């Protein structure tokens, strides 16, 4: 471009570029020459430097392989589940309250599989008995979380002696909510959602504040007490059902599903439209428990509990 147009249409002669340095901070190359030559090296020395640096990097890489101090964690699961790709799964869990017989084998199996503390108040899953008496009252009992099964009559206070209209068992566990309050309230981001929809707790980050325990409307969380048994080997952190993440990532069913004698607990991949789970959800339309909480649970229920008032 040799001329410039001004807004009124007249042309302006291009100004010659100033020969003198416009910026006083710019030092002419000529003046820098001594400094450059002061640190300049011969081509041979330069190549030698390059060779030495390359050799150093190769050596460091070799040392890093021998002593993997920078590796993430040598005991991580890479060699055990190399084929598991969470992004391809959308796990779902269906509980049939019409089928459950209240044996409590699921509760016992969960504790054994996940090293959950033995005391009944610490539990990842439990079974409730909902008893509706003829006067319309709903009584819920869950002796020791149902781990030893249930006595013939409801043990809920006030239920004794009342004529029963309807009674059924309701297995409970973490709902793995899509819209999860626990992950929302965690102040340190310790609890999080994986791509396949499971909510986990990172014991390295959890500070044990208990916010998530009280935030969960389903009461599915607890704080691991000091003691021998601890699911993540870290007493003091929050813990909850992981849908047996170590089992499902190996292609197995969660322990509670594995031992359920009547098929009241069903687990599968809803992302695969041909899977049993997807067909079950489409055909039987299981419902979330307490949908008014607005958390969009991934655990869905069939049977009498879905019509509970």
């Amino acid at each position, binding site marked *: 471009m040799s001329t410039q147009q001004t807004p009124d249409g007249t042309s302006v002669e291009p100004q010659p570029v100033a020969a003198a340095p416009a910026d006083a901070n710019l030092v002419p190359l000529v003046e820098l020459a*001594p*400094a450059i030559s*002061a*640190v300049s*090296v*011969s081509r041979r*020395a330069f190549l*030698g430097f390059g060779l030495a640096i390359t050799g150093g990097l190769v050596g460091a890489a070799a040392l890093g392989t021998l002593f993997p*101090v*920078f590796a*993430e*964690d040598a*005991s*991580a*699961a*890479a060699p*055990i*589940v190399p084929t*598991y790709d*969470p992004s391809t799964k959308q796990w779902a869990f269906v509980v049939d309250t*019409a089928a459950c*017989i*209240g*044996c*409590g*084998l699921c509760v016992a*199996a969960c504790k*054994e*599989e*996940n090293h959950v503390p033995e005391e009944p108040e610490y539990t990842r899953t439990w079974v409730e*008995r*909902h*008893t509706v008496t003829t006067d319309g009252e709903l009584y819920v009992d869950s002796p020791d979380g149902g781990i030893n*099964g249930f*006595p*013939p*009559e*409801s043990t809920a206070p006030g239920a004794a002696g009342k004529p029963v209209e309807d*009674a*059924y*068992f309701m297995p409970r566990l973490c709902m793995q909510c899509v819209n999860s309050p626990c992950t929302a309230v965690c102040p340190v981001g310790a609890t*999080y959602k*994986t791509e396949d929809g499971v909510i*986990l707790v*990172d014991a*390295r980050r959890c500070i044990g504040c208990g916010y998530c325990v009280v935030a969960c409307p389903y009461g599915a969380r607890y704080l691991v007490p000091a003691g021998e048994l601890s699911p*993540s080997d870290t007493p003091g952190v929050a813990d909850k059902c992981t849908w047996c*993440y*170590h*089992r499902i*990532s*190996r292609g*197995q069913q969660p*322990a509670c599903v*594995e*031992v*359920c*004698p*009547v*098929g009241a607990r069903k687990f599968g991949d809803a992302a695969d439209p041909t899977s049993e789970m997807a067909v079950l959800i489409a055909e039987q339309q299981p419902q979330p428990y307490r949908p008014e909480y607005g958390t969009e649970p991934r655990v869905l229920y069939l049977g009498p509990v879905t019509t509970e008032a």
Partner: protein
Amino acid sequence: MKTSSRLRRFWDSVRPRTRRGTFLAAFVIAGGAVVLSGVLFAGAAMAWNPYLDFSLNRDTNAKQWAALELSFTSSATCRECHETEHARLTSATHDGIGCQSCHGALIEHAEAGAKADAATVAVAVPTNEVCIRCHTAAKGRPAGFRQIVPSQHYVSSCLECHDPHTGIANRPPVVLHPLVDLPPCLTCHGPEGFKARNQRHPEGSKDDAKCIECHAAGRGPAERDHDPAVSE
């Protein structure tokens, strides 16, 4: 050429020749050393202390959860060796029950594979408690699910009469009367009769004198020559 003189010549070729060059070189070397030591220190600290894992990659933790060891195996794994039991189980009412529902966690047994035997990895024979856990009558169990009242049921060992794998084959008839004041025989050999021959029939109890008068223990006439026993 000697090594020392080569080094001297090398140094002569690279050494700073002005004060400015000296400062520049010193700055570059010192700065590099500071950066390098910082990187090394952070790396060593992270390797030593997991709480200094600044990575935002959640995959690390998910992998730790995924790497936990199993206690329970799968029934499909059991079937690989125990096809007979599987066939019997799927033939009757206990079809669908996982092996470990009654036998307990079996991962060690499964991992021992063909080497597994009673001496190395024992598999528990279920006790009465395992049966009663499901089959005791209790409010809340689905209608149609088989339930017993243990105090009104002949119980010495469940497996004496019941085959847990085929379930229904040796099932005694439904008890129509309470055991009170009646011989235990009648628990099984009740009004409906119980004809199936049971290889594991217990020796006749001494309490059953009333029955044994006519029926020797474990034998006896197949035909009833008296009215059906009913209570009340």
